[in-house]
């Protein structure tokens, strides 16, 4: 009897895997199409390029995954990324702080900005959309204030984040480590499991004794921390902190999370999904570049991809529920 059950299982499993990982299927199809369309796609250099580009988006999006799973939204990640890298640069160049400490300082600034978002949302009762919209403006403004609108050189430690070890770019290594940490937090810690409960039904979570407010603050602080890391990656690549860095990146991060199958109403989301979502965005841009499609049209295509991805997801969930 067990053998007959087993005989059915693989195909069922494959089917379920595909249905649960629509974004991954899409990514594979995309890669195959690009491989056929242009010989430049599947070259070592291009793959590393994609890796470097995806590192920033994905790291931002990992933090965003926490927030979205917990039922919020964080519009400030792009500005916080810029502020953190600028603060790091400022600490190094103007305050004479050691380079490694400047890097830690940058991360800390992101953490604090995120925690402020969380406090405003949990204790100040502001909707997270509004709280982080305010932070988007505040953090960008502070970035401009600190820098006087000019780029600031980064410490060697930050520049190291943009370098290579052997043939492997450091951003890709950072990405892998960040993904591992994010996955661990979301799936293996009390905090991570609580995020799902808070996002799924925050009142039920509260009545079950979960410290909902503390969880919300922590979630936003984590998002700020990941945003800071993304900002430092970006600054490392350019060897300077740019006042206009990462403008609009919050939208890429949200798109990556959503393409990855998370629900904007909270309670659903995966780090692997978010990673695939970020890859989809970056691979499309990369492929369209290789095919000499203008950046104007790229925006149109990306918009359609987001709509399609989420549309399919809604349909899939509907069919499963009934």
């Amino acid at each position: 009897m067990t053998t007959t059950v087993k005989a059915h299982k693989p195909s069922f499993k494959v089917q379920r895997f595909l249905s649960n990982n629509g974004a991954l299927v899409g990514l594979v199809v995309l890669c195959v199409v690009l491989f056929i369309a242009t010989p430049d796609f599947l070259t070592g250099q291009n793959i590393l390029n994609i890796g470097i580009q995806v590192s920033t988006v994905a790291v931002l999006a990992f933090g965003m995954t926490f927030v979205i799973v917990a039922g919020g939204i964080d519009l400030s990640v792009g500005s916080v990324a810029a502020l953190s890298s600028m603060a790091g640069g400022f600490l190094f160049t103007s305050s004479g702080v050691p380079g490694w400490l400047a890097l830690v300082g940058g991360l800390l600034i992101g953490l604090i900005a995120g925690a402020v978002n969380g406090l405003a949302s949990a204790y100040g009762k502001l909707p997270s959309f509004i709280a982080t919209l305010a932070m988007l403006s505040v953090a960008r403004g502070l970035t401009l204030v600190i820098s006087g609108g000019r780029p600031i050189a980064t410490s060697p430690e930050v520049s190291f984040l943009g370098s290579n070890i052997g043939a492997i770019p450091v951003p890709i290594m950072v990405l892998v480590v960040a993904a591992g940490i994010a996955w661990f937090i979301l799936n293996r810690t009390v905090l991570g499991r609580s995020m799902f409960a808070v996002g799924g039904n925050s009142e039920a979570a509260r009545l079950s004794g979960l410290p909902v407010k503390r969880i919300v603050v922590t979630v936003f602080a984590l998002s700020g921390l990941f945003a800071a890391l993304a900002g430092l990656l970006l600054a490392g690549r350019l060897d300077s902190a740019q006042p206009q860095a990462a403008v609009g990146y919050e939208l890429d991060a949200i798109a990556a999370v959503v393409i990855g199958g998370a629900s904007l109403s909270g309670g659903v989301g995966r780090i692997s999904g978010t990673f695939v979502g970020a890859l989809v965005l970056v691979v499309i841009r990369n492929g369209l570049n290789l095919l000499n499609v203008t950046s104007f049209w790229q925006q149109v295509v990306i918009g359609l991809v987001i709509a399609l991805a989420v549309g399919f997801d809604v349909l899939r969930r509907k069919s499963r529920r009934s």
Partner: protein
Amino acid sequence: MIETPLITLEGVSKTFGTVQVITDVTVDVRAGKVQVLLGENGAGKSTLIKMMSGVYQPDGGRILVDGIAVSLPNAHAAEKLGIATIHQELNLVESLSIAENVMMGRIPTRFGMVDRKALRSKARDALGRIGLDIDVDTLVGDLGIARQQLVEIAKALSIDARILILDEPTAALTRHETDNLFRVVAELRARGVGMLFISHHLDEIAEIGDTVVVLRDGHFVAEVSASTPQAELVGMMVGRSIDEQYPRRSSPVDTSTAVLKVTGLSAKGRFQDIGFTVHAGEVLGIAGLVGAGRTEVIRAIAGVDTYDSGTISVRGQVLKKGSVGAAIAAEIGHVPEDRKGLGLVLDASVNDNLGYATLASSARMGLPDFSGQRSRAGVIAETLRIRMLNIDQPVRLLSGGNQQKVVFGRWILAQSTVLLLDEPTRGVDVGAKVEIYELINSIAAAGGAVIVVSSELPEVLGISDRIIVMRDGRIAGEVSVSEATQDTIMTLATSDSNRSSQTDED
């Protein structure tokens, strides 16, 4: 003098999946009559209503409107035939005015713009027809629930509804508001509107109804006059004696051991001067009308809401106010009244939902005890006979009774010994109800203390050792279960006569 009923459900049946929820039921609604639909939760009342209003289609039998067989494929078709339903959750937009709500979808226009004058006068007419005199520019959100209900009725009538289905309209109303509603119902009856009325308050039946159709487990039991004695109606509804429905436990109450002690608990606008003690092995029932403050007291004890003054102590230890965590640490478990809104994370698994209260306490260094939780949850699911595919199934897909068992299971897993149960069997089918009563008994038998808030008087009478009755945020009286009857409780819950004489404490 037989006239054709406005609508007849003739021998209808309905099956969901493998469960037959309605079997060969016949109900009609006649012009100028109030037909009462009576049955326990899960007897099939709401399914029947949904057939009448086009939400569900019967698998067998026919629907006749004015004697002609019709099909009602959707709510719109029912509306067109003059069938309107006033649901418990009202269908109004709170941020719009009364006039806009009443005329929703039919807003009069002039030259493409809203004709405010016509809008107001038409809405005023509609309100006038049920004798409601309020400024039609008032926002619906500013009205109380009773008036909102009347607005909804006015709206239904203004689209020429001849058949009005009232689904537990009095559940959220005060006595005074109920009287007001009944006046409107009487007027409508005089004007020839046919009504189908659902209520859990047995005493309302004789007051407002003409005939009663009794349902049990999806079957038609009888159609009788509304003046039939309540005991007889209950007998038909339950189909067995109360003794069987409420399994009693034999273990005695240990009155020397106070487990939960509440003294002088007050919170402005919610409840005043609440004091009582629950002993080891005791089930305390809290009766009272909706809005009497029962849920608020329970929430305060559970640490969900804070309060102004008074103390709550568990086994002699004073409880920190407004902290769910402190309550859980004191072995308090809280099954809230709205299990979907407050009790469960619907998209999370049975396993996760069972484990939320113990997630942090069973963790080591911030890492949950996944395998231990799984095995404990498995044991609980088996003991409580939670019917599910597997423990990773989202609770959304479980039936109401099984969902409720998950909320219970969470506290059993947390080894709670003080259980606060707010309407624990609402929307739970008869079989699961008895299982929940047995669960309550076993917790009490193990020396725990249980508080049950319930609006179903037979339930309070059936499972409690002692009953306190609340009215207007105060304790109106206490009765031991041996001398309590539905009448004594309802008298305490509604009368204003002894308001002056209840300043003394007990």
